[in-house]
């Protein structure tokens, strides 16, 4: 942690953590901050589970041929890994944790608009997670997280429970999004105009629009698969006139925008982090704010790029391919604005900043391979190879998880009122970024050489790169455990962080750390934009004292 003023040991003062005691007070809490903390625990557990399965996959791929499991077990593992990582971590994590915790703080509200529905979303998450995970392990689901028909409707393994689980998780996701939209519209404190909203709130707003509009489509589609599997309705069954490609259309109408449910909040987090780290206002506030909405909107027009090789018409593929490239346009707007914000800033090299730099590199690298993949002719070569796997892990893990970690380190002092060891944090950040590169760069190469995804075995000439990838994954896992270790240690013996250890001008830092139960003693009146570092970056640091 940067030199902390640590003047007020706020930890013994009343705050949301010690306002009420006991497990019951947590299970029935309506406080958005406690709900955010519950999401932190739950989604991190999901991340741990998904990570264990990822390591098992990498272990299996250490040698050609069977290493520790057979083909069927491998199929089940990657299904577990995919479903858990996407539905239990990537989609709910940043909205559930930081969205819940910080949106009300950032708009000067006491809570989200519908606190009871907010609590409901936690329980929907829990219920859906249990049904999905238990269903997958019991039934041995081997379809992959995409549940493609006709395989998912004809496999001998059980599929219905995980579909039901995903449906319930989707309801939780919808409820969260709906809550945030209404919160941003109706709960802003006096002075918080739309053009003064912190960029994280803008990103969460755009995310919520996708959650509300796209998730019902997934829910219904999964129910249709369940109906077909259980009752033989034939809706995706070619023998009864059904069109399996229709399933892919409906599935990706949600699941492609869902990629933006995962990355947009990440973009919001780094927008906050970069301003605080560079001690400068966002270079183009409006451009970044509206590009979030732009990504959310264009994200709905591109789903067909997942169907290039599955029988979709060449015409539709062309249209979807061109539309897909527009996403790159809006993402580039953000990237340029972030980098321009760094220019001539008084940059503090802290753990959040290192993660931000990692994020930027992974997003640009992953994004550019994405643009390459959106051209149909190239995709035909790369489709279903490790190139695609590496591409989306660069965006999802490299992008979203770097941003998640940046946010976690940036806001940790606010959420729990404690500082963590800056040295350990920097070391872990470097390890994680190195480990990540070592894991996935070999996979780009493997994919380009033609190694297909979703096989437990491979020809011998691919072994060297696979070993490198597995070694990288181990490094990555080690880095994550390090983070867990020093963050838990900071809870136990960390120093009091003080209300604003970063001297950030974000609205959320106007509260004590940890915030009190009511957030603000009285409704705040805001007379400036977020992150207005008026006096120039250097003066600002002194000024903050």
């Amino acid at each position, binding site marked *: 942690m940067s030199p902390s003023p640590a003047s007020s040991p706020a930890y013994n003062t009343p705050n949301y953590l010690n306002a009420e005691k006991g497990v019951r007070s947590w299970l029935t809490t309506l406080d958005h901050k406690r709900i955010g903390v519950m999401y932190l625990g739950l989604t991190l557990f999901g991340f741990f589970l998904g990570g264990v399965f990822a390591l098992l996959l990498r272990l299996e791929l250490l040698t050609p041929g069977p290493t520790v499991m057979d083909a069927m077990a491998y199929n089940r593992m990657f299904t577990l890994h995919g479903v858990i990582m996407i539905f239990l971590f990537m989609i709910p994590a940043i909205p559930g944790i930081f969205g819940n915790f910080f949106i009300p703080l950032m708009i000067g509200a006491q809570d989200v608009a519908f*606190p009871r529905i907010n609590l409901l979303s936690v329980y929907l998450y829990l219920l859906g997670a249990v049904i999905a995970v238990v269903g997958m392990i019991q039934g041995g689901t081997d379809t992959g997280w995409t549940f493609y028909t006709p395989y998912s409707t004809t496999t001998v393994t059980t599929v219905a429970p995980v579909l039901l689980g995903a449906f319930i998780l989707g309801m939780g996701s919808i409820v969260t999004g709906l809550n945030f939209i209404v919160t941003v519209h*109706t709960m802003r404190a006096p002075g918080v105009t739309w053009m003064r909203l912190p960029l994280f709130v803008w990103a969460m707003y755009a995310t919520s629009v996708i959650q509300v509009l796209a998730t*019902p*489509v997934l829910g219904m589609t999964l129910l249709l698969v369940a109906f077909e599997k259980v009752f*033989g309705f*034939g809706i995706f069954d070619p023998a*009864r*006139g059904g*069109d399996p490609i*229709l399933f892919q259309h409906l599935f990706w109408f949600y699941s492609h925008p869902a990629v933006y449910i995962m990355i947009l909040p990440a973009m919001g987090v780094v927008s906050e982090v970069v301003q605080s780290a560079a001690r400068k206002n966002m270079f183009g506030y409006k451009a970044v704010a509206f590009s979030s909405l732009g990504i959310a909107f264009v994200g709905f027009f591109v789903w067909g790029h997942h169907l290039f090789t599955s029988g979709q018409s060449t015409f539709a593929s062309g249209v979807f391919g061109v539309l897909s490239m527009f996403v790159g346009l809006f993402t580039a707007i953000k990237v340029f604005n972030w980098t321009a914000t760094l220019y001539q800033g008084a940059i503090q090299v802290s753990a959040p900043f290192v993660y931000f730099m990692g994020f930027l590199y992974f997003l640009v690298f992953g994004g550019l391979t994405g643009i390459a993949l959106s051209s149909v002719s190239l995709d035909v070569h790369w489709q279903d190879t490790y190139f695609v796997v590496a591409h989306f892990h660069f965006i999802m893990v490299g992008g979203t998880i770097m941003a998640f970690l940046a946010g976690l380190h940036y806001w940790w002092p606010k959420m729990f009122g404690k500082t963590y060891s800056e040295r350990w944090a920097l070391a872990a950040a470097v390890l994680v970024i190195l480990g990540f590169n070592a894991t996935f760069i070999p996979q780009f190469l493997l994919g380009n050489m033609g190694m297909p995804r979703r096989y437990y075995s491979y020809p011998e000439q691919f072994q060297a790169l696979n070993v490198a990838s597995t070694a990288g994954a181990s490094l990555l896992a080690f880095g994550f455990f390090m983070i867990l270790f020093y963050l838990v240690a900071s809870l136990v013996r960390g120093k009091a962080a003080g209300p604003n250890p970063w001297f950030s001008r974000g609205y959320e830092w106007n509260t004590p750390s940890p915030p009190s139960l009511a957030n603000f003693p009285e409704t705040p009146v805001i007379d400036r934009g977020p992150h207005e570092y008026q006096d120039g970056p250097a003066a600002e640091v002194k000024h903050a004292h």
Partner: protein
Amino acid sequence: MHTDAAAAPSRLAHHFPDMKTQEHAARMGMWLFLSTEILLFAVLFTAYAVYRFLFPQGFDEASKLAHVAMGATNTVVLITSSLTVALAIHYARLGENRKVVGLLGVTILFGLTFMVLKGFEYHHHWVDGQLPGRLYHYAGLQGPGVSMYFTIYFLMTGLHGLHVLIGMSVLGWVAWRAGRGEFGPGYSTPVELSGLYWHLVDLIWIFLFPLLYLM
């Protein structure tokens, strides 16, 4: 839950500045929820559009097996029930809770009528073997796309029927609250929100009826 209609301020949750904002938030939340409902049905409408496009003849012949008289009656029933709900909202805003109870009661009866007629239709299709997918065994009409019509028919009307049932339960609960005299000029949000839901159910049927019965 407070029961006193006059105690409007007590309905104000701690995190809202005033009642107006709170009601605005509730209404906006309901509209967003309705949009999720629309997108939920959109999946089935898409499936309908695709399969009707792929099997025009099969859908044509199969839709002749639909019971138009009952479907048309149900359309009239549902539209009229929408009227009674709209009137209930009107009287809830005026605080005439007795009228609200009566109108919502009539609405629920209309919903019941709808479901009973729907049940008769289902029964006929069941008896004739006009069922979805592999369950289809009606000898009178065979060919590509025919069973798909019934897959879509049962999915769409089934999901819609489920929404009618939910709507009836919600309206029943609101009617019970109206019976306790809860609503008035300061507070009629539950009537309005449940009414919105009921109208959406009606609105979807307005599309379902011509698409499934009259093509």
